[in-house]
């Protein structure tokens, strides 16, 4: 008995239960927030950004990793795919940011009964998520607009817009729809909801292996993509472009486009080939084992 208490381990099916629960509930709430109208007073936007209290509550009560991943996936499936608003690669960034924020919020809480811990964790989760998405939004404009610094006023305005919406989201959505409901729900559900899934409530003696952070492969992939984006951007700005222009300027004008399209096409091709190859390898390995 004492050995089982030391680490909070779940069976495969229990993990799946937490995952499904978090996915469907957060997905449902997402659909509701998508449909509720926004109130905008000039720059102050009083919108219900998200019902962050659902994943927060579940991450605090159950295993944070599966609850966090489930919530992110639920958002993508219910809130985007089913409403026909799937953003493709943009969703990857949301997925990573949201899972990471919720997971961190979940592991911050050692004792779900302590209001202080729950409150701090809820706010931390919202702040991390909003900070990551604000940074990504700023980066998008930076990468998307050529000669970003040369355009007067743009840098300041992007910073102002994003900074303001960050504060707005943290203070308005964060307090009203994350902090207060989480503080209300966690003590009420603690000890009640876990037996329904056939597991014991978390207590402060349990620890997690932090090594299992939200798919290291996903995070690494995101970083590689970001670096690649900046690399291409740098190429198009610097000498590479200039040399081509020097040769063909008279005839063709700006020729860099060929390179970037070819690079993108080759990247796409290699990705596909790599995925096929990896899949085949995996298939063989599994068959051998």
């Amino acid at each position, binding site marked *: 008995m004492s050995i089982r208490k030391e680490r909070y381990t779940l069976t495969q099916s229990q993990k799946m239960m937490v995952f499904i629960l978090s996915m469907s509930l957060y*997905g449902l709430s997402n659909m509701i927030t998508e449909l509720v109208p926004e109130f905008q007073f000039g720059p102050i936007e009083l919108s219900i950004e998200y019902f962050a209290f659902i994943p927060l509550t579940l991450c605090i009560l159950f295993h944070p990793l599966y609850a966090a991943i489930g919530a992110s996936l639920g958002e993508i*499936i219910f809130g985007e795919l089913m409403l026909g608003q799937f953003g493709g690669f943009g969703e990857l960034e949301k997925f990573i940011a949201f899972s990471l924020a919720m997971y961190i919020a979940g592991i911050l809480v050692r004792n779900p009964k302590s209001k202080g811990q729950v409150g701090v964790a809820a706010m931390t989760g919202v702040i991390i998520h909003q900070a990551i998405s604000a940074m990504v939004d700023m980066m998008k404009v930076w990468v998307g607009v050529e000669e970003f610094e040369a355009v007067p*006023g*743009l840098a300041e305005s992007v910073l102002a817009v994003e900074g303001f919406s960050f504060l707005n989201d943290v203070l308005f959505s964060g307090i009203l729809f994350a902090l207060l409901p989480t503080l209300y*729900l966690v003590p009420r559900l603690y000890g009640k*909801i876990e037996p*329904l899934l056939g597991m014991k409530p978390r207590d402060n003696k349990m620890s997690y292996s932090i090594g299992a952070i939200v798919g290291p492969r996903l995070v690494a992939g995101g970083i590689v993509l970001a670096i690649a984006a900046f690399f291409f951007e740098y190429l198009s700005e610097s000498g590479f472009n200039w040399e081509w222009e020097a040769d063909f300027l008279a005839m063709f004008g700006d020729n860099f486009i060929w390179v970037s399209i070819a690079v993108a096409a080759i990247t796409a091709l290699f990705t596909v080939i790599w*995925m096929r190859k990896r899949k085949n390898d995996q298939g063989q390995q599994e*068959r051998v084992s």
Partner: protein
Amino acid sequence: MEYTRKFTDKLSVEQMKIELLNTAYGNGDTLLAKLDPRTLFIWYLFFGITPWFIHQEPILIGMFAFMVVLTYFAKVSPLIVFILCMGLLGQGGYLLIVSLFFGGDAAVILPLLTLTLKLSVISLASIVVFCSMTPEKLSDGLLKIGVPGQVSFSIAYGYRMLPTLLEEYHHVFLSFRLRGKAPSKRGFLYWRAIVYFCKIAILSFYPLLLSMTKRARTTVEALETKGSFYGFNHPQVKKLKLAHLKLRKRDVYFLTFSVVYMVAVCLVEILL
């Protein structure tokens, strides 16, 4: 008056469920819907990434025209296109106003227009691709490219369960309203009413959390009985399940056409 009635019709829960199923299954007979999911993924891999690295307006305009034509053929619901347009215009316009405030001038407009053009190409590409796939097709396609079985199961589960969940949430919400007391005064700008509804919306999740927990357990137990976890981890099962996915002639034609079109656009840009 009639507009108000139409609007409230649109907002009813029944109507929403119909709309959802329509988005999911309504356009199975379009040109793009007949393609293999892998073709669409490859196509999207190109059109979702390249616009970020292109700074030549003519090429972006060419891509945009291609997307508009495809959106038309994919029979994307006008509501979705409208939402997209509002979002893009709102973001671009907001940035423009704020940067004018910070001492920018008319020179800001062009880069911002280019950025909006890029964003619209990317979003239209994703709408075209993901609206023309039925959930089964999407989950089969994802399974084929190596996404874990849990994800494709979740997609199918989401589509199946959502109408039920929405109805249950609606019932809980209504019973809260029935038993509770609405504020007698609306308050300035209806703020009392808004606060009241937000509070109920949050409180309604409490019973739903408990009932959903039971449902999740039942689902997983049913999955175990059916041996789904075995299927997630064994390639033979996957192979059998995905045997119907084949690259056909029209997939090749579609990809070839896209490549030819892009090359033509680039040629035009270079020659001009």
